[in-house]
Structures are given as structure tokens and as C-alpha cells.
């Protein structure tokens, strides 16, 4: 007893050291990570080869399914639309002049002068090119969503999804380089924004490891100069964009045709009637809504409002809501975030009800795209009102998905609720939602806050005042509301409250993420060890088996 009492309980320091020693130990989580990194190149190469074999460009492996299910004919449809766009593009190339002084006029001439009798060939060719490109982007988007919602990337088809996403991005970029060629106001300002935003890639904050080094390599500025062919949009930009516009389709087509040549499959799994109907639909749209031209580009006047082409509207709205550095990182990062989410989905189940988190990521993306576009087209977007709703709904979608998934896993594994609950994930989302919402409703960072708007409306109703009078009344009677974020107000009230809320949020967020990662790593290591022990236990009886035989 005395000896037992003598052994002291290990202190906090010793226990922490033991914990880390255990982590680094060969069979701990870090040990597995270490071997994982060592074996990575060989595994990655094998993984890629496997996916390369299974890669699907035009839904060619769904040819039978496409006969009854139009969702699986999208691959053939987008290829057909692409061919139409290339064909009409070649026709347009004959008359188009890539020069800032003549581009707009040459398009006008294509639209008006190029006729056979009264039949407007030029207008039709341009309509086919423009609406065909729109159809391409719609179909490419639908294909990405089809693969996402049906879990089509499972069972080794990850590369198919990535290529589908790449086709969509290349399609959007072709659209952007294409509509500068018209040289109208929309084109000029869209190009200006698009070519300027990479410069924020050189503005990494120095607290990011290697941030200053990345800034010094001037990736953003180089990208901007390569795109523009100089420091500003000019004749060089038009010739460059003309080349890129053609080259993107051309290079992509070479790769696709090489694959078809090597594998020998049918490019379009649709019948000739379907092709004809698609062609006629686009032609009909081109006849009834001739492709618009807008007003000629004028670098000295930015019209108000100014909109991008429809598929960029949601991203355009996002640029208004964010700090430009963050917005740039997000814009560049969206495809990587999507691919990251894809690799988070490791379960073999691909049915709708069995992977709700990933469904909700898809639904959320779709909702944002449609909603942002709707708000901006109808001019009811409000950059002060929308961000909290946006952040809040992002967390909400993930939570809805998580709780549905949680219910599914509980039922599948016949477990109690706490055994399958991911506390850190839910805490992470909840803190994010709460802090973002509070920050946007009560933070006085830049302008009068959203909370004040409601109060102003109450005052207007109660005192029968105009909005100006209501604000005046509030300013004199409720100075604590801090209606206007001005230098004087900041000096008078000290630091803005919103900033502290934001810091608290970031700290809580990072803390929970770090804790969650640590606990997750530990559990993962333990699971791996248990698996290995089971395997060794299984292997041992076999090794021991010859012994009794020898005895006999």
C-alpha cells in the first residue's frame, strides 16, 4: 500500500508529452500518416491510371441508359451543341475583324448585311453561336449536377466528375473571352473585372506562411498582363482573347478526339431526331430573340447598372459582398472546394437518402446561383442585407444535411444517438453561423447596420416621419445605435464592436477545428490499429497451424 501511495500520478506535462509520444509512435496516427506519405507517389499513380481507364467524357459508358433516361444523354447533347457552336464560330470568323476600332462595326455588318434574300444568315449564325454557347453551359452545368446528385463519381469515377467540372469552367472562360470580341460595354467591364481580380493573388497577408514569398513572385500581376497583353484593355487584349477563344475549343477537341481514337466509342449517344430538335430549338431562339449587341465599349463611362453574362452573375454578386482578397480566393477556390467535398464523401452508398450532406452542398450551390442571379437581375439585391442571410443559410444547409445523415447512420448501424454524433462538426457550424449572424446584425464595421434599418422603419411608422427625419431623430435621441460609422464615431466609442465579435468568432472557430482534428486523428489512428490487430490475430492461427500437424 505504501509503495502504491508513493507512485505519483503523472503531471499534466508528463501526460501531454506521453500523448504526443503516442501520436508520433509508429502505430499512432502520425505513424500511419508518415507511411502514407512515403507510399503516396506509387498509390497516386495507380489511382490515376485506374480513374483514367474509367473516365467518361460524353457519357459513353451510359449509352444503354441514355435511351430511357435523358439525364444520361446530356453528355452526347453537350457534344452536339459544342459542334454547332464550333461550326457557326468558323462562319463568324470569316467576317469578324479583331480590332478595337472595327470589331463592333464588323458584328453590326454580320447582323445586317449578310443575307440571302430576306433571310438573315449572319444573324442566324451569330444566334446559333451565342445561344449554342448558352446551351453548352446549361448542359455542362446539368451534367455536373447529375453526377453530383446521383453519386456518379463513386466507384472510381472521380476523374469523370473533375473533367465534367473542367469542361464547365472552360466553357465559361470561352464565353468570357468570346463576349469581349463584340467590344460592347458589358464585354469591356466584365473583362476589366476579370483581368483585374487576379492581382489580389499578390496581396496575401503576411501572417499566412509563405504569403510574402508568394506575393514576391507576382503571379497575379503576371496573369493580368498575360490576359490583357499590357497594362490596360486595348488592341492587344482583343487579339489575345480571339486566340484564347479559338484555342480553348481547339485544344480540348484534340484531346477528346485522341481519346475517341484510342478507345473507339460513340461520341453522341443521342439519335438524329434529338440532334435535329436541339438544332431547331436553338435556331428558333435565334430567330425570335436575335442576339443582342449592346452599345459600343467606352472605357471612360461605366454604365449603371452593369451586368455580366448570366452565368457569371452569382459570382459577380459575390464580389460585391466580400473583401476583394477573400472574394478572389473564393472565386479561384470554388472548384477546389467542390473537389475537396467530393473526396470527403468516402462511403460506398450513392442513393439520395444516404448522402444528405453532399446533396445539400449541391442544393445550396444551386440555390445561391439562382437566388443571386434573381436578386441582381431584378435589382433587389442589397449588399448590406444579403451577406448575413447568405452565411447563415450556408451553415443551415450543412446542418440540415448533417442531421439527416446522422439519422440515416443511426438507423443503418443500429446505434444510440450519442454514438454517431459529430460534436465538433456541429459546434463548428453553429459557432460560424451564430458569430457571422451577430457580426452582420450588430457589427458597425462600415456602414449603418441592418438592425438600425428595422428601428428606423418603426420610428417612421410610430412618429409618422419620413426616412430622413427618422434617421435625424434617431441620431439625436439614440446615439448608442451608432448609425453612421465615421471617424468621429469610432474615436468616440473606441474600437468597433463588430471587430471583437469577429475575432472571437475566428478564435472559437479555429479552436474547435483544431480540437476536432486532434480528436479525429486520434480516433482514426486507434481504428487503424484495431484493424491491424484484427488482421494479425487472423493471420496468427494460420502460422500456428502446421505445428499440430508436425506433432501428429
Amino acid at each position: 500500500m505504501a509503495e502504491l501511495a508513493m507512485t505519483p500520478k503523472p503531471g499534466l506535462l508528463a501526460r501531454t508529452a506521453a500523448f504526443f509520444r503516442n501520436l508520433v509512435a509508429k502505430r499512432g496516427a502520425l505513424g500511419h500518416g508518415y507511411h502514407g506519405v512515403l507510399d503516396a507517389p506509387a498509390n497516386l499513380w495507380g489511382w490515376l491510371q485506374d480513374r483514367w481507364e474509367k473516365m467518361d467524357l460524353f457519357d459513353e459508358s451510359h449509352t444503354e441508359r441514355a435511351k430511357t433516361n435523358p439525364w444520361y444523354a446530356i453528355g452526347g447533347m453537350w457534344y452536339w451543341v459544342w459542334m454547332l457552336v464550333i461550326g457557326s464560330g468558323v462562319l463568324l470568323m470569316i467576317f469578324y475583324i479583331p480590332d478595337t476600332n472595327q470589331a463592333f462595326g464588323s458584328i453590326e455588318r454580320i447582323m445586317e448585311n449578310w443575307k440571302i434574300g430576306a433571310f438573315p444568315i449572319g444573324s442566324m449564325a451569330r444566334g446559333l453561336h451565342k445561344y449554342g454557347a448558352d446551351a453548352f453551359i446549361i448542359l455542362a452545368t446539368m451534367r455536373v449536377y447529375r453526377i453530383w446528385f446521383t453519386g456518379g463519381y463513386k466507384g472510381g469515377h472521380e476523374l469523370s466528375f473533375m473533367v465534367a467540372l473542367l469542361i464547365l469552367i472552360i466553357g465559361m472562360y470561352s464565353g468570357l473571352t468570346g463576349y469581349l470580341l463584340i467590344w460592347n460595354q458589358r464585354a469591356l467591364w466584365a473583362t476589366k473585372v476579370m483581368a483585374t481580380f487576379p492581382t489580389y493573388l499578390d496581396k496575401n497577408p503576411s501572417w499566412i506562411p509563405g504569403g510574402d514569398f508568394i506575393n514576391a513572385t507576382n503571379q497575379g500581376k503576371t496573369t493580368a498582363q498575360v490576359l490583357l497583353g499590357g497594362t490596360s484593355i486595348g488592341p492587344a487584349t482583343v487579339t489575345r482573347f480571339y486566340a484564347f477563344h479559338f484555342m480553348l475549343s481547339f485544344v480540348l477537341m484534340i484531346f477528346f478526339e485522341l481519346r475517341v481514337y484510342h478507345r473507339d466509342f460513340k461520341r453522341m449517344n443521342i439519335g438524329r431526331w434529338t440532334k435535329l430538335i436541339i438544332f431547331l430549338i436553338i435556331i428558333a431562339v435565334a430567330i425570335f430573340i436575335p442576339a443582342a449587341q449592346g452599345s459600343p465599349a467606352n472605357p471612360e463611362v461605366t454604365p449603371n447598372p452593369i451586368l455580366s453574362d448570366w452565368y457569371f452573375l452569382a459570382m459577380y454578386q459575390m464580389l460585391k459582398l466580400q473583401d476583394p482578397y477573400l472574394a478572389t480566393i473564393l472565386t479561384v477556390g470554388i472548384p477546389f472546394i467542390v473537389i475537396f467535398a467530393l473526396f470527403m464523401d468516402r462511403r460506398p452508398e450513392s442513393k439520395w437518402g444516404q448522402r444528405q450532406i453532399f446533396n445539400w452542398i449541391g442544393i445550396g450551390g444551386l440555390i445561391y446561383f439562382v437566388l443571386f442571379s434573381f436578386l441582381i437581375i431584378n435589382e433587389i439585391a442589397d449588399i448590406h442585407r444579403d451577406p448575413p442571410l447568405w452565411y447563415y443559410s450556408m451553415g443551415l444547409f450543412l446542418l440540415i444535411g448533417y442531421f439527416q445523415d446522422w439519422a440515416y447512420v443511426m438507423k443503418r448501424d443500429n446505434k444510440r444517438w450519442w454514438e454517431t454524433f459529430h460534436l465538433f462538426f456541429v459546434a463548428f457550424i453553429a459557432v460560424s453561423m451564430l458569430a457571422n449572424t451577430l457580426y452582420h446584425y450588430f457589427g458597425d464595421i462600415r456602414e449603418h447596420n441592418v438592425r438600425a434599418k428595422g428601428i428606423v422603419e418603426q420610428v417612421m411608422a410610430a412618429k409618422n416621419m419620413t426616412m430622413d427625419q427618422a434617421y435625424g431623430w434617431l441620431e439625436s435621441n439614440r446615439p448608442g445605435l451608432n448609425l453612421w460609422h465615421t471617424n468621429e464615431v469610432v474615436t468616440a466609442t473606441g474600437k468597433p464592436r463588430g471587430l471583437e465579435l469577429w475575432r472571437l468568432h475566428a478564435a472559437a472557430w479555429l479552436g474547435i477545428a483544431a480540437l476536432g482534428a486532434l480528436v479525429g486523428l486520434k480516433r482514426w489512428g486507434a481504428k487503424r490499429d484495431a484493424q491491424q490487430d484484427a488482421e494479425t490475430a487472423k493471420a496468427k492461427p494460420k502460422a500456428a497451424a502446421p505445428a499440430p500437424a508436425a506433432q501428429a
Partner: protein
Amino acid sequence: MNENTRRTFLKAATTIPIIGGAVLAMHSILRYFKPTMAGGLDALTAPPDTAPSPPQVAAELSDLQTPWACKDFIYVRSSVEYSSRKTQGAKIPGFVLRLPDEFVKDKSDPKSFYLIVQRICPHLGCTFNFVPDRDVLHGGYNYLAPQPFHPYFACPCHLSVYDPTHYQANESGVELRGKVVSGPAPRPPRFMDFDIKDGKIFITGTEGGGVG
């Protein structure tokens, strides 16, 4: 494994120069895409000319007598660029704003009555406007300005609004007029250096940066 060590080593040793050669070849191909410019990468950030000749007139003082009078002008900043025209004059639109006396700090200096900014939005390069109307600012630029109202600069692209009566620091820590009061812009508009001579405002230089 052991038999292959020498072969593996030799393979690796020959791969390195091959990869190096490929990188060099790629570099020259990629370099082809970069435009040939006098200033190189700095053309985007450094002002190419500090003292242009002849000095360009932005506005005449007789047009700027009333408070909040605002005149727009185009300043041509020439830079050598590869194009069919060999040089490209980058046209920079600007505003001259006559500030009301109550916002002028140093009334003994005639220059401090005028604010001259480049109209290129420091956010993403659109051309911003002078908005003297509160309703237009509210409806078109999503910013409900406080009373009493004074004019603002506002950009149609991403709805940044600049307050010419307040100061904010730029990247180098210089306090400039045109504090961002709404929207995503990271800093106030870029300034232009100027001189007043014979009742005219001459531009003598520009703050660098921005895709013009």
C-alpha cells in the same frame, strides 16, 4: 530490389536534366505570352512618368468656383507596350472636385481646396462616378447616405462608395480623401499630383497601380 538500385539511380539521374530541359523549354514558350513592356511587371504598380511633358491641363479654376463643383478630364499616361501601335497611351479618367470651405484643413494653401482623383476604382478597375444626388446614391449604389447630404464618388460595378470628406490610409499608409463607406473597395481612390498656375490646374504625376 537490390539489383535494381543502380538502374533506378541512373534513371533518376537522367530524369533530372530531362525535366530541367522541359522546364526551360516551357519557360520560353510561356514567356511568349507575356507582353513586352518598358516597365515590365512594375508597369502595373509604379508610375511610369512623374513629370510629363508638356503638362496636361485638368481644369480651369473659373469652372470650379462653387462648392462641390466637379469636372471630369482625361489624363494620358503614355507607356511603351507591344501592340501594332508600338506605344499605348493609357487614358486615365479623373475628377477635379472643389471642396467646400468647411472641409478644407489648410485654407492658406490654394491647392487644398481641390481634390483630384483618378476615376479608376481601386477595387477592380471600373470607372466610378460623381453622385450629387442622395436618391441616386441610394437606389443605384445601394448606400443610404447620412444627412446633411454631400456628394460622393460611387462605382457602378461593385457599388463601392467613397466619401470625399473623410480620410483613409492607402497601402503605403498615406492618408487620402475618399474613405470607403460602402462596398468592397480596399482603399480610397488613387490620387494625382497637380500644380496651379495661371488659373489652371496642371497634372504633374500620378499614383501608380491599377489596371488602367
